[in-house]
């Protein structure tokens, strides 16, 4: 993170980048790209995009998310994952075999308040989306601690090519699951969880600081 961070504002004309493709957070008005968010400008090969400094999670197909069951529908559950709308989990995407509403109730499988790791399977044009908990590593979790951060911070928690997350795994250990919606599940003892929470909070606070990975390495070494 040695290069200078360039902050852009909504409406800022990016004249220099008129030949680039527009990515997230950039719109094209006339012939020039214009930033539509307040955040940091990033140039990746031929695409420019703006990383906002705060955002609400927007689901994409294939994302792994962690959410809470908040309601029952006719044929499935509603799951809150901190996005604009609630996700829908159809019963056929949750259980093996057939579901018969005369014999079983939805609450026999998942109850309100249960936490699930799910995969986004479908996002409609209007932003409604469906999730599935069938698959490896997916499903209800009962034995983990959770940390919630803004989804923007995940980029820093993972680091460049996973440098930060590997560093954390090396020093703290345990099973870390990163939900794309900003929820982190952690399976290990409580003491290790407290350590991890402290580190995550430092990263979340200093999202825009440079040289963060080396700083975190120092903190971790000091702890050990």
């Amino acid at each position, binding site marked *: 993170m040695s290069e200078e961070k360039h902050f852009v*504002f*909504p*409406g800022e004309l990016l004249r220099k980048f008129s030949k680039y493709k527009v990515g997230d957070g950039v719109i094209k008005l006339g012939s020039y790209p214009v930033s*539509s*968010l307040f955040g940091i400008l990033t140039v990746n090969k031929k695409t420019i995009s703006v990383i906002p400094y*705060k955002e*609400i999670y927007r689901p994409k197909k294939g994302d792994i998310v962690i959410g809470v069951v908040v309601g029952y529908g006719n044929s499935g559950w509603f799951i809150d994952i901190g996005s604009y709308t*609630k996700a829908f989990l159809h019963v056929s995407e949750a259980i093996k075999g057939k579901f018969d509403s005369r014999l079983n109730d939805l609450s026999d499988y998942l109850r309100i308040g249960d936490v699930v790791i799910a995969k986004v399977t479908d996002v409609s044009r*209007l932003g409604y989306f469906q999730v599935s908990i069938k698959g490896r590593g997916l499903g209800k979790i009962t034995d983990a601690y959770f940390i919630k951060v803004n989804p923007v911070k995940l980029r820093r928690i993972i680091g460049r090519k996973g440098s930060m997350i590997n560093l954390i795994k090396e020093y703290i250990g345990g099973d870390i699951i990163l939900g794309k919606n900003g929820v982190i599940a952690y399976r290990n003892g409580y003491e290790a969880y407290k350590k991890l929470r402290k580190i995550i909070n430092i990263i979340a*606070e200093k999202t825009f600081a440079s040289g963060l990975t080396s700083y975190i390495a120092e903190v971790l070494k000091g702890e050990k």
Partner: protein
Amino acid sequence: MVEKVNYIRYDGRKPDEMRPYQIKTGIFRNADGSAEIKLGGNWIVVAVYGPREHFPKAQLSQDKAILNCRYHMAPYSTSERKSPKPSRREIELSKVIKNALERAILLDQFPEMTIDVYIEVLQAEGSTRVASITAASVALADAGIPMRDMVVGCSVGKINGQLVLDVGEEEDKTGEADLPIAIMPNLKKIVLLQMDGKLTHKEFKEAFELALKGAMQLHEAQIKALMERVKEMEQFGDSR
């Protein structure tokens, strides 16, 4: 541009001088985005929520988000107690501000959603509508809502035949004309233009130029407020 430069106003300002202003952002912990503006005696806070699911479902819009805007004056904001009930003027201003902000927000990115903007005037001293728009667009940027451009407003009045920038309460009451505008400064588009009283064609052109000058000053303050928020976050973190 302004002919009589030695004209002194009731509060000692020059004709083309703004009242002291300050914009702050990230003032509320619970709202998605928030901002505060102090412009002379004006003190306005704005909170932004959303985008969120629209209720009731029967009234949602299929192709774009709905912007809800509430402009409200506190009972203690004016010199005489104001009834907290929304008055005719407040309902009108809510609509005018909504129309101005709608031009800037990319509502088509959020079909079937709602964005709420709550504007609370804690203290009023003239030109509250343009100050509200200025603060609201900072709050929207703070909430991370995509916009074509920031929106910034400024007002110009005419008093004793003299055009004055940033009309205060006294000038609003005794003046001959009043011209609030709101613009998108980078795209150079007008999103709000109202006029009260009479101006000649030539005066109108001059007044408009003067208002643009004031708006650009406020736009700089908007950007400064957002940058300060980043610095603050680096030091103290997101939790507030």
